[in-house]
């Protein structure tokens, strides 16, 4: 840490602070205000204290959507992280293949999220979609619009399709930072592929993986657009995750007080998880 201590640096940060305060602190304060009131209109509101919170925390709606959300986020991590590592290990290390792979892998990441939903909405259909049609042809009764399990799996595969490239790209850039000398030494020692991975590559990937896990967890935790377009949260509520439950409450039913209380609970979860990751990140920085 050889940074100069200078509180005048605050002047440089001030514009960011002002802007983000305007778009984060003011809204957050508003959410807190809303969450303790029952609001029917601009001049028609009543103070209800913590009523919304007590109600929500006992509400199976919140419990179920929270459980679904955690289930989804952990499934996403369980598939995308190992798959991303495998793909990063399979990528060529030099030659023309490198830029080609990088660009092709980036493609899903650049697609607008509702188009991602559209793509899978189309390709999963039994009548006009290649995957849905193929599944039905081989005798699997697959219909993501009617069967909750199918819908769940489709949303999961869509997310794997959408975001595994991110994990792969991160791991790949982590792998590229390993000097060739390490591999040469391993070759002299006749180390097995597994040993090379376990003792050379994996330790070097630790930091990158931490970021990958954080980004994938947080982004899957706020997933909204893709399942909204693909399944609309159904059938039933089988693919309704936290963001969609909240949006339905806020915009659909205009249940402002309840939605605000929901937002705060949601935000507290995000805050805790982000803080854990941030601490882990800066902690490893300190040691390095």
């Amino acid at each position: 840490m050889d940074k100069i201590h200078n509180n005048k640096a605050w002047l440089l940060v001030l514009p960011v602070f002002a802007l983000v305060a305007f778009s984060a602190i003011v809204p957050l304060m508003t959410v807190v205000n809303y969450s303790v009131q029952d609001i029917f209109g601009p001049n028609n509101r009543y103070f209800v204290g913590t009523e919304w919170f007590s109600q929500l925390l006992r509400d199976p709606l919140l419990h179920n959507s929270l459980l679904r959300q955690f289930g989804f986020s952990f499934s996403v991590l369980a598939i995308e992280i190992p798959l991303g590592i495998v793909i990063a290990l399979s990528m060529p290390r030099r030659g023309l293949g490198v830029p080609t792979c990088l660009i092709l892998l980036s493609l899903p990441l650049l697609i607008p999220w509702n188009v991602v939903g559209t793509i899978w909405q189309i390709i999963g259909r039994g009548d006009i979609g290649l995957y849905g049609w193929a599944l039905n042809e081989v005798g699997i009764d697959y219909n993501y619009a009617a069967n909750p399990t199918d819908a769940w799996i489709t949303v999961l595969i869509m997310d794997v399709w959408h975001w595994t490239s991110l994990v792969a790209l991160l791991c790949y850039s982590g792998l590229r930072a390993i000097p060739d000398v390490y591999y040469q030494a391993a070759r002299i020692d006749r180390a097995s592929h597994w040993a090379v991975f376990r003792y050379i590559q994996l330790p070097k990937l630790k930091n990158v993986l931490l970021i990958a896990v954080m980004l994938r967890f947080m982004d899957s935790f706020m997933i909204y657009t893709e399942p909204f377009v693909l399944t609309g949260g159904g059938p039933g509520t089988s693919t309704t995750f936290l963001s969609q439950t909240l949006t339905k409450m806020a915009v659909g039913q205009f249940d402002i007080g309840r939605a605000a209380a929901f937002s705060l609970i949601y935000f507290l979860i995000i805050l805790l998880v982000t803080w854990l990751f941030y601490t882990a990140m800066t902690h490893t920085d300190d040691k390095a």
Partner: protein
Amino acid sequence: MKTRKLLVLFIYLVFVLVPIYWLVNMSLKSNREILSSLTLWPDTLTLDNYRVVLTDPTWYMTYLNSLSYVTMNMVISLAVALPAAYAFSRYRFLGDKHMFFWLLTNRMAPPAVFLLPFFQLYSSIGLFDTTIAVALAHCLFNVPLAVWILEGFMSGVPKEIDETAYIDGYSFPRFFIRIFIPLIRPGIGVAAFFCFMYSWVELLLASTLTSVSAKPIVVQMTSTISAAGIDWGLLAAAGVVALLPGIAVIYFVRNHVAKGFALGRV
């Protein structure tokens, strides 16, 4: 081993590309062909769907709306993020780490949480259904993103350069604009690309803060769903048009793609 690796990569790339191909394929078919039988490529190639998207004002205006708020957002984000990122990469100051963390939480916070107050806020100051409202709302996650990415790039620039410039009598603004910004040009490019992209792909805030006159393309796409069913061909064509901007510039940032997605931390 070599062939097995290639096979894994090949299978994955096919998995990635087939759905995109399918979208392009559908966009070149007429609805009659889409619904009558499953064909791997268009029997009769038609550009009608694209003609609608590119000539009908209700379509291309939404495209322009999207481009305008995305561009505004990009300019605002970079303008405020550049000095802040410099401060974070060069100085320690009271509360710097907490400030940095707070920015991160805004990148991580779900837009759904901010939906209600944003709606009320922009309605009350009369900006509802304008592109500037969406541009400002997207600053919520793009400004932190830009700060993090730029900080990552700036930390790679040796501090000796700053010190030499100050000794040579450069003032801070002159040093920053004449020397420092050219040095981190790739970083600025990458940050701009990611601001552009994240603003371009976002739907929830963009659709809540607009209704008619500032409607973005991602919202217009939902209008292909009507009582008469879904206009698949048109939807697919709009989708292809919507994913073009990202693909158009990915080549230029290919080497920094990972760094950008990882908030500059790789």
